């Protein structure tokens, strides 16, 4: 299931090549097995400079986000969160602007749907003021030299 979730994140990132996206893939040891080896393999399968891969053997992140998302489990996992450009992490991470999951019985957010997740990511990117329009708000550079009189 989780590999499927990861593959959906990869699909999303491949279809949105925007440099204003950052992704943090946090690997949690939910099912045991060769957790580190598998995490390494999967991380290597999608090298992208916008993506940070984190190995979390103590499930620190799962515990933390469980307090935020309240999935009614010991730890939050199989969750996919989106934070807008203005989100700030004070003492704890803020509520995500949008999130999806692959958990049974959780109704606080929709189940993971890759096209919908991608569409939401694009929508959030469109809300960031593009750099070109920021530049265009500046006063245009014009010559202040007076025209010679005829």
């Amino acid at each position, binding site marked *: 299931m989780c590999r499927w*979730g990861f593959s959906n994140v990869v699909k999303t990132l491949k279809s949105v*090549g925007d440099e204003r996206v950052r992704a943090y893939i*946090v690997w949690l040891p939910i099912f045991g097995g060769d957790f580190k080896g598998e995490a390494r393999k999967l991380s*290597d399968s999608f090298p992208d400079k916008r993506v940070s891969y*984190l190995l979390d053997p103590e499930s620190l992140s799962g515990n933390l986000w469980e307090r935020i998302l309240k999935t009614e489990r010991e730890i939050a996992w*199989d969750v*996919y969160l989106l*934070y807008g450009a203005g989100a700030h992490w004070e003492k704890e991470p803020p509520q995500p602007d949008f999130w999806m999951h692959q958990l049974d019985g959780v109704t606080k957010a929709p189940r993971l749907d890759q096209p919908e997740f991608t569409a939401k990511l694009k929508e959030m990117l469109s809300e960031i003021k593009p750099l070109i329009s920021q530049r265009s708000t500046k006063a245009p550079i014009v010559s202040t030299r007076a025209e010679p009189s005829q």
Partner: protein
Amino acid sequence: MFDGPPHGGRPRSTLASINMALLTEGDPLTTTRPCYVLREKKMRERHADRLKLRFAIATLIASAAIPLGVSLLANADVQRPARSQTRISRPRLVELRSIDQLKEVFERDGGKVRLVALVSPT
């Protein structure tokens, strides 16, 4: 004093003339040259032949390989997929020892849309 060849050839007066006789080809006086001289001559000829053959093979290979290499390189340029600017050679996998590590990257990337996925690799 050298008295001439043992089998009755023309006598020589000096060592220099003997050497000349031994090394000069076609001189009727050198028909009694020792066999090592002939062997050396043959070896030199064979060596020269081998060099010629090697040069010919190298020329042949180069004449075939250079255009092939050029064509492969030209095709490689065309066929190579456009490399995404976001691609990197091998991603770093950082072990999370404190949640502050994650907080730090999250805050560093402020102003960008951030995606967090908590997943199991197994």
